[in-house]
């Protein structure tokens, strides 16, 4: 299966802009399904970006982050071709990891 993580990381001189979209239901635990049963909470709790052995961004998320979450940030100190490692863990113990080259 394809990765749950889509990343675009583009270098613009000293600054690298990162956009990520992650496929995840981000269920709040407040919603019922068509049979009237509560869909248990299922959401990403932590999302990490590492570059050159250093954390460059850490997101702690609750259930109010939209389904298929999106985040955008920028950091300094990387260059084109460097690898960005992205990983997430959710409240049910699920996780995924991917790497992307900075373009």
């Amino acid at each position: 299966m394809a990765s749950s993580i889509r990343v675009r990381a583009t270098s613009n001189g000293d600054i690298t802009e990162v956009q990520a979209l992650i496929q995840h239901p981000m269920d709040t635990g407040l919603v019922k399904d068509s049979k009237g049963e509560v869909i248990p909470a299922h959401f990403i709790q932590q999302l990490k970006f590492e570059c050159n052995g250093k954390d460059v961004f850490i997101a702690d998320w609750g259930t109010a982050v939209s389904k298929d979450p999106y985040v955008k940030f920028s950091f300094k100190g990387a260059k084109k071709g460097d690898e960005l490692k992205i990983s997430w863990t959710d409240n049910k113990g699920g996780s995924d990891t991917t790497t992307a080259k900075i373009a």
Partner: protein
Amino acid sequence: MKARIHLLLGSLSAALIAFTLTSPRVIAADKVDPVTDAKAFQNFFFQKFPNVKHEDFVNGPYSMNEDMKRQWQEKEEFPPYEFALDAGKEMFATPFKNGKTYADCFPNGGIGIRQNYPYFDTKEGKVVTLELALNRCREANGEAPYSYVKDEMASLTAYMAYTSRGKPMDIKIPDDPRALAAFENGKRYFYTRRGQMNFSCASCHVQSPGERIRAEILAPALGILNAMPIYRSEWSGMGTTSRRFVTCNSQTRAVPLEPQADEYRDVEYFLSYVANGLPISGPGARP
């Protein structure tokens, strides 16, 4: 107002105009004339919204409201249909059990052809939509058909639309009375009021685009199918043209037809034909 009346009267007024020009082609007021209809349809929207660029109508409600347009542009930085698009691309390239692929079923290997659908199949004597053609392709290759409304079907059409982005809609109506009848039938379906709320498709999407119905901004009918399939935030997911028709009917408390019923195929034919010349913008993102 004048333009609206003109549009609502449809072919009658078209015939009247032709009459005043003493055209020799005028035979009866109910003659089916898609070329004139399409022109009147487009002019209605162009005159009603003089500030909207013609090619922008395919962006639906976002062409009508600045605040929403900004939210949309932010969404488009990493659009929510991205996953469906990737899935569709992969599915499209994956062979069936018999070794053939979707590409074998379509002209040009299925790439860059969205703007030619739906088309009138002179052998069958009916309109064939892209969604129908995809399921027929599956069945011809021994695969079970997909649901018409979402998931796989939306992913496949998302990919096919994506490869056709920017190409002008190019629907042909052959010189065949059955094709003209299908167009006319689709037009009739579009303008007929139905359901508990007594709305036609046109009540919202011709008379009131850009206005709010409850919280939402109505999309213009012109070019509405050019953006299909769409990721709707309201659905938290993708939906096809079939899904759009079904929900439109149920929201006005009418009884929806089965996806790919003849009437839906015909209304897709009508709506696509009158959007000829406007670019394919699918897959789209909508509120």
